[in-house]
C-alpha cells in the first residue's frame, strides 16, 4: 500500500515536472520570437537598432526559462531555440554598440 502511495506521488511530481518543462520551453521560444519580431519592426519602420527595455526583460526571462527547460527531462528543441534567439538579441545589441562607436563618431 505504501508503495502504491509512493508511486502515485512520484507520478504526480513527474507530470508536474513535465508540465514545467513544456511551459518553460515554449515560453522561451515564444519570448525570443516576440523580441525578434519587435527588432525587425523597429528596424524596418523606424531604422531603430535597439529594442525597447521591456523586450530585453522578456529576453532575460526567456533565457532563464530556456535554461530551466534545458535541465529538465524531455525534448530540448524549444529550449535551444529559445536560448539561441534570446542570446542572439543580446549579441546583436552588443555588436551594434561596439561597431556604431567606430562609425561616424565625432564629438
Amino acid at each position, binding site marked *: 500500500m505504501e508503495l502504491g502511495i509512493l508511486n502515485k506521488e512520484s507520478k504526480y511530481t513527474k507530470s508536474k515536472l513535465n508540465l514545467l518543462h513544456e511551459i518553460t520551453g515554449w515560453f522561451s*521560444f*515564444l519570448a*525570443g*520570437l516576440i523580441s*525578434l*519580431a519587435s*527588432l*525587425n519592426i523597429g*528596424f*524596418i519602420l523606424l*531604422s531603430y*537598432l535597439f529594442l525597447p527595455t521591456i523586450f530585453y526583460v522578456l529576453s532575460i526571462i526567456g533565457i532563464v526559462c530556456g535554461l530551466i527547460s534545458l535541465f529538465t527531462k524531455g525534448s530540448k*528543441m*524549444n529550449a535551444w*531555440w529559445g536560448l539561441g*534567439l534570446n542570446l*542572439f538579441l543580446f549579441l*546583436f545589441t552588443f*555588436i*551594434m554598440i561596439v*561597431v*556604431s562607436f*567606430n*562609425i*561616424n563618431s*565625432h*564629438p
Partner: protein
Amino acid sequence: MTRNDNDSSQEKYSEFLKDIKEQSIKHIDISQKNISKTVHIAKYKAKISNIMITLAIVLLLIPITTIFSYLYYGINNKANDLIKVSSQLIYVTEPNIALSEDINTTIKFFNMDEELNTVRRVGKKNINNESIYIRYVLDRALSLKRDARSSVPLTEMRTNHFIFPNKPFRFDVQKEWNQLDKLPKGSVAEVYVSFNTFYSPEDVRSKFTNEIDVRWLAVRSGREDLSFNEHSIPLGYPLQGDSNMYSPFHTTYIDEYGLEQTFLNTVHDLAEQQKIVSSYPYYQNISFVDQENYLKSHGIKAYGVVVTGPVNELKKLQNDKSVRAIKIGEVALWNWES
C-alpha cells in the same frame, strides 16, 4: 462429482472468461483513444514548432544582414573613409562652401546613406547653401542628390564662375561690374574674382585689405589647360580654419601644418582614395593623383579667389589691374559688424 456440479462450474468458467474478454476489449478501447489523442497533440505541437522555426529563420534574416553590413562599414574604417572623402571633396572643389552641423549616416543592407548640409559665407554670416544626400552601395557612391537651401538655383550653384587667365570670357564681365555698382551701399556680397595671371597664396592675401574677407583660393591643377568651362570643377582651398569637426581644414590641423600643407595633405588623401572619388557623379574624370603630382612639381599657383565684404569695398576691385573678371554670387543685407 455429479454432472450438475460439472455444468455449473463450466458455466462459471465461461462467464469468467467472458468478463475478462469484455474487460480487455474495454481496456483496448481506452488505450487506443489515448494513443490517438497523444498522436493528435504531438502532430499539433510539431506543426506549431515548424511554424515557429520558420518564423524565427525569417526574422533572423534582417538582423544578421544588418550585423554584416555594420561590420563591413565599421571594420577598416570604411564608413569613416567615405565620410572623409565627401567632406574633403566639398572643401577643395566647392568655392566658399563649408560644412554645417553634423554629417548624418544611416547604414542599411550593405549600403550607406550620408546627409551633409553646407553653408556659404556672405559678409560675416554663414547662409544655408544646400543639403547633399549620397547613397553608397558597399564603397561606391551610387547616387548624389542635392537640395538647394538658398535662393540660388542648383544649376547656378554648380557653375564654375572663374575665368582662367589664358581662356576667353564665358559671360559679360562688364555686366557684373555694373551690377556690383548698382548694389546698395548697406549690403554685403560674395564675389568670384579671376586674375589675369597666376599668383602665390601670399601675393593674393596681400592684394586685399582687411575690409574684405578672402575666403577661397582657386588653384591651378594642370587640368585647366585641357578644358576649362562652366562645368569644370575647380581645385582650391579655404583661406581660414574651420570649427566643424568633419572639416579637413579644422583649426587644429591649420595650427599644426599651416594652410598650404593642410591643402596638400587633403589632395594627397583624395589621391589615395581615387577609387571612391571616381565613383561620385561629376568626379569620374577628375584624377587627384595627377593633380597632386602637378601641385608637387609646380607649387601652388592661384588664378582666382572668392571674396566677401561690403559692396563699397568690393567696388574698389575695379581699379585693381590684376583682376581680370568678377562674378557676383550671393548678396545679403548688411551684416559686416555682426
